[in-house]
């Protein structure tokens, strides 16, 4: 979900803005991006707006998880990889460009009376140490913990911040953000995690406050909402980007795109 009117205005603005600066080159070609499903809203918005900037360039987005984005950039199956986590030491041959920050929202079914959990409580729910909702002030019902596949940046972020690496007991391992949201929405006893940008304004699930802090642009930016990570472009070091791809990266990481990113629910970082 993205706010209709204002975003459209911003897109128009940016078109007029860039028309002055990049008038010199009319690029054409196809840019394939692949990776993080958390970045779907952000990418969708950016791609659509970029069409106005460079009508000759088609940017494609495939949402297959951050791991796939990094592998794709390494193997050359896409031009730009997308990852909702930072590169690890053993992930070589590629480098990252951060486009935004994003909170990881802890979501439960709207029927669930629980509305605030501490990080420790969340970890206990995830590892199965807490197996019944009544233990954290909810109904007497079995906890159903839903999460993401191993390649997910969201999962990586969630597990490392909550300290539950390799200890989570998943009832379901979904391969995208949307699925987790749908899974939690359809099961009254479910708890899961998903990109804040994807669930903001979505009333099919309830976003919990963590240690009393509600996730928002401000709390993510100032760090009070702890469960957060970066949205990154992953670029192969050895193959040069095409002109079209380079133009897209430059534009997306510039301030011109900030409003668009914010409109899509993430936190822009460009200064």
């Amino acid at each position, binding site marked *: *979900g*993205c706010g*209709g009117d204002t*975003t*459209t205005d911003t*897109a128009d603005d940016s078109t007029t803005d860039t028309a002055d600066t990049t008038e010199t080159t009319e690029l*054409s*070609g*196809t840019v*394939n991006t*692949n990776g993080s*499903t958390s970045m*779907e*809203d952000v990418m*969708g*918005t950016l*791609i*659509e*707006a970029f069409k106005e900037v460079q009508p000759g360039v*088609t*940017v*494609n*987005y*495939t*949402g*297959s998880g951050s791991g796939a984005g990094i592998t*794709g950039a390494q*193997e*050359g*199956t*896409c*031009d730009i990889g997308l990852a909702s986590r930072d590169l690890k030491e053993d992930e070589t041959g590629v480098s990252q460009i951060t486009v935004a920050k994003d909170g990881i929202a802890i979501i439960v079914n709207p029927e669930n009376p629980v509305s605030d959990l501490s990080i420790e409580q969340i970890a206990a729910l995830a590892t199965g140490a807490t197996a019944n909702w009544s233990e954290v002030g909810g109904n007497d019902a079995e906890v159903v913990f839903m999460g993401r596949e191993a390649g997910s940046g969201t999962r990586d972020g969630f597990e490392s911040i909550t300290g539950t690496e390799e200890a989570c007991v998943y009832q379901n391992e*979904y*391969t*995208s*953000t*949307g*699925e987790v*949201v*749908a899974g939690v*929405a359809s099961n009254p006893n479910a708890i899961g995690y998903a990109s804040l940008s994807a669930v903001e304004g979505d009333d099919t699930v309830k976003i919990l406050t963590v240690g009393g802090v509600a996730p928002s642009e401000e709390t993510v930016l100032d760090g009070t909402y702890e469960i957060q990570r970066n949205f990154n472009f992953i670029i192969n070091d050895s193959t040069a980007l095409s002109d079209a791809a380079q133009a897209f990266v430059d534009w997306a990481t510039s301030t011109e795109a900030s409003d668009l990113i914010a409109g*899509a629910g993430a936190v822009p970082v460009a200064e």
Partner: protein
Amino acid sequence: MTMQPLSGRRRAYDRVLRFLLYFCATLTCALLIFIIGYIFVRGLPHVTWEFLSTEPSYINDTIGILPNITNTIYIVVVTLIIILPLGVGAAVYLTEYAKNQKLVASIEFATETLTGIPSIIFGLVGMLFFCELLGLQASLLAGSLTLVIATIPTIIRTTQESLKTVPQSYREASLGLGSGKWHMIRTVVLPSSIDGIVTGCILAIGRIVGESAALLFTAGMGMSMNDFFGSVSNFMHSSGSSLTVALYVYARERAEFDVAFAIAAILMLLTLIINLAASLVGRKLKKK
């Protein structure tokens, strides 16, 4: 000489089996009606002209499947253009030319094996070979080439089947009149088996349209409009999802169930049309 009626035991046997037959047939039909009905009821209301003729927009928060339709057409056309000549040619070679029976038998076994290989395996090999090794990236072209490998055995087999139904006596008669082999094939064999070839072709289209696992990892899941015939580089590098992959993505990853059902309804209609076309063509050409 009086007439003895059927013994009770025989009558019971008859009744029980008859009941089971009707029961199972009814079950199958009920399943089918449920599936079709459910898809149409949930899907058709969302199929609008707008839905069919636009591309999705994040800014306006709308979804349209025009890109998926054009991607599907791209894949069908490119795949068919490659497999038709190749598959029919190979079938002709195997049934009419190849001398070494053992070789033919082993190739037939190989094609048969290939038809049984799960498409996820084709996806895996296609990704490794076309996307990475040949550097096509995840693109519609890589997807089409993967489908070429996946469907060529089907074309070979259906063509071979229909070539084999051409009576040997036609061939003998033609050769007996002093025709050469190609002349015989062109004037007698191919005309008599054309219906089978066309039907096989339509069924191959069906298979391509219905394919998802092999495309998911080779052609990408993009939803935006491609201009793939704009330039050679676009033709090579456009990526995106076909209708089936889009269905999967909307249903699984985006939880846009109405969109998924609408695509499902469209796919059902397509399947219906393809099946009808296959049986019509088969019947019409047979009559001729």
